[in-house]
């Protein structure tokens, strides 16, 4: 909440400060969908379902309401903001990104820029469209569903780039480093709910329901809220990440990042019920264009998270996906396979965290005009989550969902 207010304040003040040279570029996207949902109640509504939707959402719903601002402040300065309107689980308006970018014009062949504020680290290649949406599947991969809900940089990121063309080379390299606050509870959802498949990005002022977790009634976890506030600062420490991008002719794009929120697992904010989780991982993403129509995107995420004194919770997590997308005229077809797993490495018997599963998602999109797009998507997930048993659910469930989407952008 504080982060959200601070970001909004910084954003507005900087716009006013630079208003002399102001030029704003505003883009928007509205996407509505109707879903043949799964019987299992969505985690968003306190259920064990790993989709955003369930049978309760078998009606027309607003799946994306995005307003993207790009305000040109001065020669090298710009401000960016993404405002999201959601109706599930509750109607809400909030920012998912708000940052200032400094990108100086330089005579050097090397280029550099700095971003400060709240934004996504650019470790994934699945979400290059407006407001961090995907132009491929509607439902994000398990990795990027998680990044969209629990990960955001609230800090400063610097990028140094060696652009291929300036060196008459086939290879481009970027070196990225960042330090940030917030993101202390990041990892909470993986430990209890596990990975999920959806396209619901968390705004800075929101929390996410963890679902029915029996162990939260235990004495040792009495301070933990049933809702994670992923962008909160709990331990006062800075986190960091570093990444390298390597492009070959833009035909092959490779990104590797190491992220560590540097959380102090022994700290807890008693009033908000949020722990600092020590979450660190490596992400490797690769995009390859066979030609201008067909591409493959893959990503692997491998990391660990720890919470509570004496490793009360100590988990390892892993996920990968492989996506194939083909565009033919106004049609785009994308098919993706996801695998995800959380390994419980602690000795806390009352709180099992192990989970694993896999999913298949197939999407067909049809571009009616520049601003209108229609699409249909089918998806299936099989998941095993150990802690479901303690809440009286089957540990192993299968879920399916079909949705129709209509998208309008300006």
């Amino acid at each position, binding site marked *: 909440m504080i982060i959200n207010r601070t970001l909004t304040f910084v954003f507005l003040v900087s716009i006013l400060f630079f208003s002399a040279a102001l030029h704003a570029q505003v883009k928007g996207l509205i996407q509505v969908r109707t879903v043949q949902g799964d019987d299992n109640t969505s985690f968003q509504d306190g259920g064990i379902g790993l989709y955003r939707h369930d049978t309760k959402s078998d009606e027309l719903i607003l799946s994306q309401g995005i307003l993207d601002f790009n305000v040109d402040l001065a020669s090298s300065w710009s401000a960016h903001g993404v405002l999201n309107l959601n109706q599930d689980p509750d109607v809400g308006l909030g920012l998912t990104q708000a940052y200032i970018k400094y990108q100086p*014009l330089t005579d050097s062949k090397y*280029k550099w820029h700095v971003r400060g504020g709240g934004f996504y680290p650019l470790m994934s290649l699945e979400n290059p469209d407006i407001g961090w949406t995907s132009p491929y599947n509607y439902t994000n991969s398990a990795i990027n569903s998680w990044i969209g809900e629990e990960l955001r940089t609230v800090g400063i990121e610097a990028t140094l780039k060696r652009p291929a063309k300036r060196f008459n080379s086939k290879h*481009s390299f970027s070196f990225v480093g960042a330090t940030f606050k917030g993101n202390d509870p990041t990892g909470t959802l993986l430990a209890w709910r596990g990975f999920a498949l959806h396209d619901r990005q968390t705004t800075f002022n929101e929390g996410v329901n963890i679902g029915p977790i029996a162990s939260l009634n235990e004495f040792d976890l009495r301070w933990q809220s049933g809702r994670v506030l992923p962008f909160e600062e709990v331990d006062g420490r800075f986190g960091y990440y570093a990444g390298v991008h390597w492009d070959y002719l833009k035909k092959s794009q490779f990104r590797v990042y190491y992220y560590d929120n540097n959380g102090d697992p022994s700290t807890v904010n008693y009033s908000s019920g949020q722990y600092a989780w020590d979450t660190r991982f490596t992400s490797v993403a690769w995009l390859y264009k066979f030609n201008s129509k067909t591409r493959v995107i893959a990503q692997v995420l491998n990391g660990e998270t720890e919470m509570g004194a004496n490793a009360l919770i100590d988990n390892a997590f892993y996920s990968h996906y492989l996506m194939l997308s083909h565009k033919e005229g106004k049609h785009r077809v994308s098919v993706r396979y996801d695998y995800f797993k959380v390994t419980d490495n602690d000795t806390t018997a009352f709180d099992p965290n192990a989970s694993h599963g896999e999913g298949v998602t197939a999407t067909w999109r049809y571009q009616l005009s520049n601003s209108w797009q229609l699409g249909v998507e089918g998806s299936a997930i099989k998941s095993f989550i150990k802690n479901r048993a303690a809440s009286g659910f089957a540990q192993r469930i299968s879920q399916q969902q079909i949705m129709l989407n209509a998208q309008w952008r300006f």
Partner: protein
Amino acid sequence: MTNMIKVLVYVFLLCASAQGFTANITIKNSSNEPLANAVVWLTASGSTEITVPEAPYAMSQQNREFIPRILVVPQNAKVEFPNADSIMHHVYSFSKAKTFELKLYKEQPKAPIIFDQTGVVELGCNIHDWMLGYIVVVDSTVFAITDENGKANLQTGAGEYTLSVWHSGFSDISNVETKNVIVGTQPLEYKVKQEVAAQIDFATDEFDDY
């Protein structure tokens, strides 16, 4: 009689220059292969005033590329920079012949820029770092870019000229090669002395600025 012949020759030459004369030029690289996309221009011996067209030239940005990649203009020509993309481009040059920056939006065209000094102006976009374009400002109105066979046809009068040749693959892009030539009925051929780096094509699309 000799006077008569002289007059006839002059009349012939005058007719040739008035009607326009096509100089066929072939440019080859150091390995004697035809060189495409070379910029060639002819400057008449002895300085003559060049007449610059009133209408501006255009270096547009489309699908995150400069179109054309190479634009040749006479000195003092006006060039406008229309943006056909729905996103902003931040076009700049640090070249000696012209240093400038323009933030360009589709819906907000900027006034043309006058290129008042000869030389090669290398263009970049601060947002899309793979965008690379060139404006070659020459002291002539007789210029062309060679086709895939290394050939260019220049409309001019017969006589003595300086032939200038430039290619974006030169390692020093300010290094223009020149040679004195006589434009007549014979086709011209010129072999560049510098090494020419091959142009690298990038497979960019609308999602690559992420």
